[in-house]
């Protein structure tokens, strides 16, 4: 009885990984619990254990192979005698994750190129990097530039970042500037704000913005309002950053998008980029900004690669949206991961002869209303796309704003495509239904085009 050993999924968002090292060779006998291989995900290097006894018949994927998809057979195991035949299906069961996490259903090219930014000088060279690397580079550049900038949060230092965003930064900047905190969000958010009042420029990482609810009083009441309450004396230059919104299969308490919550507050700036170039340029702008900035990242985007301009000091201004794809028939506007969905939808719409213009908001507050209004003046139709809940969401805000500023230009009602109005379910099929899908965006765009 021969068993296929499959490439395992080792994190909620892992879709592929590198088979870094085999510890067994063809002909070796393995017992359950033996370490067979070392697998590198985008977050960590993990050991992979055998779950069955048997003899390795054949290695199918040699060590050093990158981009091995989850569930790809990587070796063949021949079960021995009774023991082997007793548990033939075990390895399959172990790795039989739901075929693909909902979020991965979006087709994602390895490198996204169609993101021309008019603000990047002609002739600029580009390098390919992941969102994770872009954020890290942006933070590191600012820490080299300004000794008052430091990073604090859970697992940012010795663990190298829960999502590897701060990997290597402890080595470069030392424990005085890359600081592991206890699990105590309200406390360390408040300490960061106090340090900002005291003249430092903290970057406070939340392991996820879901945990920032423990600290939202400090963010809203202390960071956002003190400048006003002090008649302009007591500014609070601080960045709160971390992954926001859904990852994959982590259920209701770890999957919420907080863009609308924070964007409600005067005194805060809220940034939610999509491309690696924007992540880099905007994290630098956020760190330099004299105001508190909520910088929303996305776990699924961390591993995605984009072209990033190779410039010495690439800073993207806060408060400016970007036309990610030009079109004349309908405007699709979104932020963060929803921009990827909108671009994919635009591609599908093009096949049906509809030219969609895609706006990447990049900053939620202050919102670049002018860019949205200009686009609507051209297309006369708009669909908003966001992962957050519908009520009082970003789409609701854009709809109201367009009533005020572009009513006469609208040929169809402003239409929202949002996350569903339910707590995020765990089951793979339900999660997929709860999230924004590309067919929903396509359908909404066609509806406002009356097609």
């Amino acid at each position, binding site marked *: 009885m021969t068993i296929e050993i499959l490439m395992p999924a080792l994190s909620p968002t892992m879709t592929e990984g590198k088979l870094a090292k085999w510890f067994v060779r063809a002909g070796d006998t393995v017992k359950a619990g033996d370490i067979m291989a070392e697998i590198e995900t985008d977050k960590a290097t993990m050991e992979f254990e055998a779950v069955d006894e048997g003899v390795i018949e054949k290695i199918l994927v040699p060590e050093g192979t990158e981009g091995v998809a989850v569930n790809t057979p990587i070796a063949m195991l021949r079960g021995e005698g009774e023991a082997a035949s007793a548990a033939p299906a075990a390895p399959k069961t172990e790795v039989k994750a739901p075929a693909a996490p909902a979020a991965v259903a979006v087709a994602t090219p390895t490198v996204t190129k169609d993101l021309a930014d008019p603000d990047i000088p002609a002739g600029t060279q580009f390098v390919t990097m992941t969102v994770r690397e872009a954020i890290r580079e942006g933070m590191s550049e600012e820490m080299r530039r300004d000794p008052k900038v*430091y990073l604090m949060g859970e697992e940012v230092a010795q663990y190298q970042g829960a999502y590897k965003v701060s990997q290597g930064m402890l080595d470069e900047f030392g424990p*005085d500037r890359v600081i592991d*905190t*206890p699990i*105590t969000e*309200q*406390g*360390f*958010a*408040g*300490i*960061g*704000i*106090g*340090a*900002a*009042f*005291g*003249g*430092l420029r903290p970057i406070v990482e939340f392991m996820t913005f879901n945990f920032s609810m423990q600290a939202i*009083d*400090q963010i809203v*009441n*202390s960071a956002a309002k*003190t*400048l*006003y*309450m*002090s*008649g*302009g*004396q*007591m*500014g609070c*230059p601080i960045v709160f950053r971390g992954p926001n919104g859904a990852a994959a299969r982590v259920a209701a308490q770890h999957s919420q998008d907080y863009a609308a919550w924070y964007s409600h507050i*005067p*005194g805060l*700036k809220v940034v939610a980029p999509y491309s690696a170039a924007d992540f880099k340029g905007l994290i630098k702008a956020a760190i*330099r*900004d*004299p*105001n508190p900035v909520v910088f929303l990242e996305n776990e699924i985007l961390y591993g995605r690669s984009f072209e990033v301009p190779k410039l010495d000091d690439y800073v993207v201004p*806060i408060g400016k949206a970007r036309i990610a794809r030009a079109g004349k028939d309908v405007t699709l506007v979104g932020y963060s991961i929803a921009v990827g969905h909108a671009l994919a939808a635009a591609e599908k719409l093009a096949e049906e002869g509809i030219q969609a213009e895609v706006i990447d908001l990049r900053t939620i507050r202050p919102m670049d209303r002018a860019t949205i209004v200009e686009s609507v003046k051209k297309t006369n139709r708009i669909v908003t796309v966001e992962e957050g809940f519908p009520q009082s969401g970003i789409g609701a805000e854009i709809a109201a704003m367009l009533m005020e500023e572009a009513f006469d230009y609208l040929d169809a009602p402003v239409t929202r495509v949002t996350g569903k109005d339910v707590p995020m379910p765990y089951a793979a099929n339900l999660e997929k239904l709860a999230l924004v899908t590309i067919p929903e965006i396509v359908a909404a765009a066609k509806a406002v085009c009356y097609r």
Partner: protein
Amino acid sequence: MAKPGKAAEAAAGKKAKLPPAQEMLRYYRDMLLIRRFEEKAGQLYGMGLIGGFCHLYIGQEAVVVGLQACAKLGDAVITSYRDHGHMLATGMDAGGVMAELTGRIGGYSKGKGGSMHMFSREKHFYGGHGIVGAQVPLGTGLAFAQKYNKTDNVTFCYFGDGSANQGQVYESFNMAELWKLPVIYVIENNQYAMGTAIARSSAQPALYKRGESFGVPGRQVDGMNVLAVKEAGEDAVAHCRAGKGPIILEMMTYRYRGHSMSDPAKYRSKEEVNKMRAEHDPIDQVRSMLLGNSLADEEALKAIDKEVKDIVQKAADFAQESPEPDPSELWTDVYVEA
């Protein structure tokens, strides 16, 4: 209440080790300024010139005056919304504070903060915070910045017996001790969290012990006696400046007035208040020490009374003359222009 200490014995006439007359007179003057200022604020509130919440510090003057006597340039102060006394003690201008109370442009926050929200970077006073307990992590962060910048300054982080039950206080104790931050947690235990007596709110009413499980040392102090406060403050400051981390001072004190102006204070008896005033008043204690030890005569004290009265009157006048903020101020100071 902590037992009356050496200072009270001295007040009774013994020639104990008292500080020089100059220093004693300064305590008298600084405490009296706070007392008279707060009385005036209460009066203006009654006249409708001050609105909203207004929490008076009357009775607690020895705490902030004694501790400020231990501070040096660059030491930071942060507190809750019962903050007028702290501002005056750090040397902020009485007119600017009073004009903030009346919501005028001449106030420290241009009238946009009010009683609970005033700040002075110049005097290292960091507010003035309205959410009970929120100033504790903030003060810990100020101490974090002091250490990060390799100064030997300390932060005086004040909060009350009410705040002492907020979770973020303990999050702060933990990190402050972990990172050896130079912060003095001053718990102004005035016995009542709004209307709830400490015995009804606190499983461990000895608040100076609240840092024990984090290794933060604590000490209970007679907060009605400015000399006892000063002495404890010196020790605490030395502890922090030596890099030994945070320390807790539980100041046993008492507020004579209600929690805020609108508090009828039905939760305690008139007798309790009167007894405190008669036997433990911080200003009377210093006055007795000064006169009983012939460090000053009635004339000298009268001169101070007059000086203080003038300052407060001028502040009250300024607070009424200063115009309301221009309507355009509504839209300023939301963001710092980058």
